[in-house]
């Protein structure tokens, strides 16, 4: 039986799952569970232990009314994604792919629902387990006691009810899977099962998100009415959504316009411009009011993060590329250079930060200041300087830019990662076929032109990879900033992640910190997708 094609497929599947099992379990425990848990936390008031459920209040505190709008959009996006996958499913069914798509879809539906039931059970169980330390207080805390309490928490009435439901769901799913495997093994398409499961989960989750958002908005409106204020959440929601939709539309039109035929191009571009202008205007007009109740420190944190990213990523990539390109020339001691450039990356932050503190000390004789004095510039206060670089140069306010202290941190961060980038660029350069350069050289192309027209395009995947990693890295950056910041600079160097950590560590505001972390996560995800779309198109995969 195992020698048939079906048998082989079965075995291949089983082997693959066995191969994946350890990694999968660990990712579930240390990757997915934490995310789900943190989301759960973000809907609560939560110090060290769970407190009351507060709905979207933490998000509202972080982003003002934009918090509601984000969740509304999340719900809509979920619905759209579900619709898209669902549509594909039905198309497939119509095409009459071999087998029994309806059965597969049923299997998917049930397993998707079972997954949600499991999630529900899980969220009922976790707080109960979390509170065990409180229950055992004043007793001798032995392992046996904890295990006993753990056992008890599974039989809490609510947990038990949810658990039973989940068991039924899982059993049903397993049963169907078994039937499918034994009875219709050949005729079932895996993707259909998975897609319909995903659709189910998405559908239910987004309906949940929408209902939550709407009820929260209603509650906020009701309380505003009580205190006699008007709260234009709905109009903000509509306007901001419209603004963003117009911007997206503009993007699509531009894309079309560039490809379009000569005589239609102008019209399309003009239309796109109009959409962009109107959308931008609406956003500019509505956003401040919607963000009025937002946490200023968080918004400032995002702004500082953006400055930090734009100040480090391009510089770091450019220098890394330059060094790698030079290293790639026929020179001696290449191994030595490669080794040395990597040193900053492998030295612990604790060690290097001390040196940077010495170099950029505010004292007159600190190395950085001595160098300035040689060039004839006034000594600066570096890591203590919260004035922006622009104001130090006498520029007007809107050109102010980051605080000098943040610049020092940028230098530090750039210094740390250049070597890493250079080594990876070097590897990327190595993958470019030498004949291309050779051919270009014979054609008489100059070094710069070869670099510009052959090397760089062929290197674009590496550039793409590194910039993606670097941008995600800067948005999550924490340690470099945490250890170089000084009290005198205040919050001028607090990127979003530093601010979030502060809330978690110093204030034990777990709920609030989690909600802000999710906003950050959403931002990173959005940027990654955006970068994928914009840059991904330009990447030449040779």
């Amino acid at each position, binding site marked *: 039986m195992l020698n048939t094609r079906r048998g082989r497929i079965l075995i291949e599947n089983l082997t*693959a799952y066995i191969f994946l099992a350890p990694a999968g379990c660990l990712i579930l425990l240390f990757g997915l569970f*934490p995310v789900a848990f943190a989301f759960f936390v973000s809907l609560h008031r939560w110090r060290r232990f769970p407190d009351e459920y507060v709905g979207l209040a933490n998000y509202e505190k972080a982003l003002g009314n934009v918090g509601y709008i984000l969740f509304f959009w999340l719900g809509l996006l979920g619905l759209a994604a579900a619709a898209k996958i669902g549509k594909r499913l039905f198309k497939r069914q119509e095409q009459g792919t071999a087998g029994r798509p309806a059965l597969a879809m049923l299997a998917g539906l049930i397993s998707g629902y079972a997954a949600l039931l499991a999630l529900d059970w899980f969220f009922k169980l976790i707080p109960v387990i979390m509170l065990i330390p409180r229950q055992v207080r004043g007793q001798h805390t032995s392992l046996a006691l904890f295990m006993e309490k753990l056992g008890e928490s599974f039989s809490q009435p609510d947990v038990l009810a949810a658990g039973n439901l989940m068991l039924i769901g899982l059993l049903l799913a397993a049963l169907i899977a078994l039937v499918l495997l034994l009875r219709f093994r050949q005729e079932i398409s895996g993707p259909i099962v*998975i897609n319909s499961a*995903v659709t189910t989960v998405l559908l239910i989750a987004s309906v949940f998100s929408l209902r939550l958002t709407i009820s929260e908005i209603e509650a906020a409106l009701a309380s505003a009415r009580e205190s006699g204020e008007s709260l234009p959440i709905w109009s903000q929601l509509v306007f901001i959504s419209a603004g963003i939709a117009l911007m997206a539309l503009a993007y699509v039109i531009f894309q079309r316009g560039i490809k379009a035929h000569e005589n239609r191009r102008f019209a399309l571009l003009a239309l796109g411009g109009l959409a962009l202008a109107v959308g931008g205007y609406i956003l500019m007009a509505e956003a401040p009011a919607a963000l009025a109740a937002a946490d200023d420190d968080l918004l400032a944190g995002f702004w500082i993060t953006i400055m930090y990213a734009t100040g480090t990523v391009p510089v770091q990539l450019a220098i890394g590329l330059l060094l790698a390109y030079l290293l790639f*020339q026929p020179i001696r001691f290449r191994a030595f250079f490669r080794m040395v450039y990597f040193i900053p990356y492998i030295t*612990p932050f604790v060690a290097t930060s*001390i040196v940077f503190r010495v170099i950029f000390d505010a004292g007159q004789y600190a190395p950085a200041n001595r160098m300035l004095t040689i060039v004839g510039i006034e000594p600066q206060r570096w890591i203590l300087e919260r004035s922006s670089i622009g104001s130090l140069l006498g520029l007007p306010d809107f050109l102010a830019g980051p605080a000098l202290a943040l610049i020092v941190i940028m230098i530090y961060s750039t210094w740390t990662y250049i070597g890493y980038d250079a080594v990876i660029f070097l590897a990327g350069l190595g993958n470019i076929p030498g004949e291309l350069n050779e051919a270009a050289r014979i054609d008489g192309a100059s070094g710069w032109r070869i670099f510009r027209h052959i090397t760089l395009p062929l290197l674009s995947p590496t550039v793409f990879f590194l910039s993606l990693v670097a941008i995600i890295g800067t948005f999550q950056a924490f340690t470099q900033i945490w250890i170089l910041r000084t009290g005198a600079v205040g919050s001028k160097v607090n990127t979003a*992640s530093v601010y979030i950590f502060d809330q978690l560590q110093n204030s034990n505001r777990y709920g609030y910190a989690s909600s802000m972390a999710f906003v950050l996560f959403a931002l990173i995800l959005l940027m990654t997708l955006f970068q994928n779309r914009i840059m991904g198109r330009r990447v030449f995969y040779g």
Partner: protein
Amino acid sequence: MDRDGAGIPKPAGGGLNASASRERLNLSKISIYAVLFAGVLIAVGPFLWMVSASFMTLSEVNLTRLLPEELLWENYATALRRANFLDIELTTDPGTGALQSVGISGYIWNSIRITLISVCGSLLVCIPAAYAFARMKFIGRNFLFAVFLSTMMIPGIVMLIPHLLTVIWLGRLSESLFGPAGAWFNNWPALTIPFFASVFNIFLLRQFFFQIPEDLWDAARIDGAGHPRFLIAVVLPLSKAPIMTIITLGFIGSWNALMWPLLVTINDDWRPIAVGLSNFVTSDTPGDLNLQMAASVITVIPILCLYFVAQKQFTEGIAQTGIRG
């Protein structure tokens, strides 16, 4: 022509018309070296000062001298002792004087143990997973891979508390199964197991496994080998370089880990070196910068040695996996 980075094909330049433009080349070569050496200075300048300061007297450090007047080796002895980095106790038989047992403790020893476990564990977990993603067909492959990848984008800070909870309760479970040795908390599992399944490693290896020619698999299958045997007998021997890359990166990450170990260790039984260094540097009393520098240098040396040994294959591994986004 040096080929120290195998996998890096013939470098550009040289070639047919090299002799024609030798003059220009020499000039440009000089400027290349100038830039490269400037890079070296910037890259290791701070590091070199760290080394230099570790030999200075305290007042020399405070005046930010470049070089010490004389090398104070005793800084290292003091730092080693004060920071509790390494402690070797030799027990000898009182009668014969023969060596009975060697007791090693201290942060360096802890870090070595932790690093070994987490690197080995990571290889054991990531290699099969990457292999499955690269070379096997199974239901939900792309879906699972997308799920894996998406976990890379989550800001680490939100994970702290849930990770703690997981470690606390899994540890209790394992302790009640395996006795005290099975504890997670303040023991190696809490310090290593969460890092076994590194998505980055899986991604890297998957990229490499993709490139292994299909012919090899066909040949192996004709010989009657299944996936496990193919993986062990054919794929692994071919993958030395990417594995070395993973080992090096894992070593660096594990050696420099600070925040997490701080939360899950309550005494020095398993506390790693970065925590030791940080405790030494940020103790509540004003510290001695020269000793801090000496301690930092001690911390870096093992990593430098490893990178020195592994760097060729490390670079090769990066080149071969062709990290391409």
